[in-house]
């Protein structure tokens, strides 16, 4: 496969959706309440649907998902972070769905290759963002314990958020405007949830743009090992 700007962009966006969908799928059978089994699966399914369209723009979806090694994945480090508690999942959802909604809103308004997908996805992502915001409010402004857990989760994931605004080659959007709008939206939600906007840096020397360049965090390799194991055990088989 030759990586053109177009396929590179499809991989970046597709890998975000694929990897986050996988992480959300890990909640199945473990969610805190039955309604969240349904909601988290819904979000995971939307993302998986987006991933399949995007990866198919770059090649064969299964070859790309199951036969690439860790260094060839272009997703953000944010989406590969292990679930942690429910607060971590919600913080990850808040950061990512806000980003994805803003990004896809811009893409949907353009003529480019991603416009069709973005127009459909932006409706799904609006629900994802609403779900994350509602839970951020409940957890932040719920009990002392939930507030503390949500505060910790928001802080722990904060350093992975700077990476989102590193321009992706082949995606022509207003990245600076995206960043400003993201910060405004997330800060507003956190404040309404009686949480502080974390003060730490939004990217470390290592994290800035790293996932997009194929540099990932340790848990990601283990995630791929699990995801790819069966497919790789039967080379050439169809399922």
């Amino acid at each position, binding site marked *: 496969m030759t990586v053109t700007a177009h396929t590179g962009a499809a991989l970046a966006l597709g890998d975000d959706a694929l990897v986050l969908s996988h992480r959300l799928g890990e909640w199945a059978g473990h969610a805190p309440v039955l309604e*969240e089994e349904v909601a988290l699966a819904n979000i995971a399914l939307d993302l998986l649907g987006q991933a399949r369209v995007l990866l198919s723009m770059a090649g064969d979806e299964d070859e790309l998902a199951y036969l690439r090694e860790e260094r060839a994945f272009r997703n953000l480090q944010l989406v590969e972070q292990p679930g942690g508690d429910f607060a971590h999942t919600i913080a990850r959802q808040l950061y990512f769905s806000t980003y994805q909604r803003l990004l896809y809103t811009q893409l949907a308004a353009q003529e480019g290759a991603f416009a069709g997908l973005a127009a459909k996805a932006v409706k799904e992502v609006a629900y994802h963002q609403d779900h994350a915001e509602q839970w951020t409010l409940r957890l932040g402004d719920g009990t002392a314990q939930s507030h503390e857990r949500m505060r910790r989760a928001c802080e722990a994931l904060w350093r992975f958020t700077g990476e989102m605004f590193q321009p992706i080659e082949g995606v022509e959007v207003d990245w600076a405007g995206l960043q400003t709008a993201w910060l405004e939206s997330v800060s507003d939600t956190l404040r309404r949830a009686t949480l502080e906007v974390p003060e730490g840096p939004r990217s470390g020397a290592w994290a800035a743009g790293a996932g997009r360049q194929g540099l990932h965090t340790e848990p990601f390799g283990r995630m791929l090992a699990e995801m790819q194991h069966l497919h790789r055990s039967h080379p050439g088989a169809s399922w």
Partner: protein
Amino acid sequence: MVEGDRMAPAAAHRTASVDGAVPEADTAVYEAVFNAAVAADERIEPRDWMPDAYRSTLVRQIAQHAHSEIIGMQPEANWISRAPSLRRKAILMAKVQDEAGHGLYLYSAVETLGVSREELLDKLHTGRQKYSSIFNYPTLTWADVGAIGWLVDGAAITNQVPLCRCSYGPYARAMVRVCKEESFHQRQGYELLLALSQGTPEQHAMAQDAVDRWWWPSLMMFGPPDDESAHSAQSMAWKIKRHSNDELRQRFIDICVPQAKSLNLTLPDPDLRWNEERGHYDFGPIDWAEFREVIKGNGPCNEQRISQRRKAHDEGAWVREAAAAYAAKHNGATGAAVEPSADTADMNGKA
């Protein structure tokens, strides 16, 4: 039957819907009206008078059904992270999500009988209510996902289609919806097995192994033989149940044998053969000792299933508390995510 005829007894027993105690002398009248409604194939609705034993039978049965839906998510969720293609992964995730949805409708159906979901979950977690024993078997390979869809969802449909005509309205309506989705699951399971069966020799062997392991437990899903079934007769009289365990089991076997042939897989029973006289397939003896052992708690996964359930529930307590605290603080704001969804609003019998 004209509409007017149907309305008469319904109207009569509906006027009997009261929250307080019914004077004893009236009980006999109410019971007669209830029996007439059941005999006329009318639906009993939540606000209607009903005998205590009818209510408790329904609570036990629907709760067990609801618990089976949510415990049943576990063996299949076990394969979501390893699904071997993105298409299969999407199908499996959607299936497990459907089962959670079935759990939601069914808990709502029990709530119409005055028992909260919280209370039912507590009974599940403490072993005072059961779930279908089939889920105490492990999913060891990817083919098990197909075998569960084909056989376990298939057996569930055979059991549940007659429940769409159950005398209790909310349960019957929930079943209509559930059955539609279960039949998708059954077809998807069949299709998954077919792909394996037509695949490499290793894939074919994987499919055969799964069917070998799931066949007998699936037959046990219909419950003990009729002459040993404790609750059957009364449930049939109340039209909660419409067919006996053995009838349903036979119906399921008759459906599966030709399907196994089309799958190019064998069923692990040397005694299976067509009986011209009966017009049914004969089959070998079922190991009821194993069935009783698994029900007693000695199946391969009883302990694991319940501890995962309890762990999810306990670890989620702070989340549910937060939602409740938030809803209480923000008067008018709903804790929507922890309340029955709009989907289940039709449980109360307007539909």
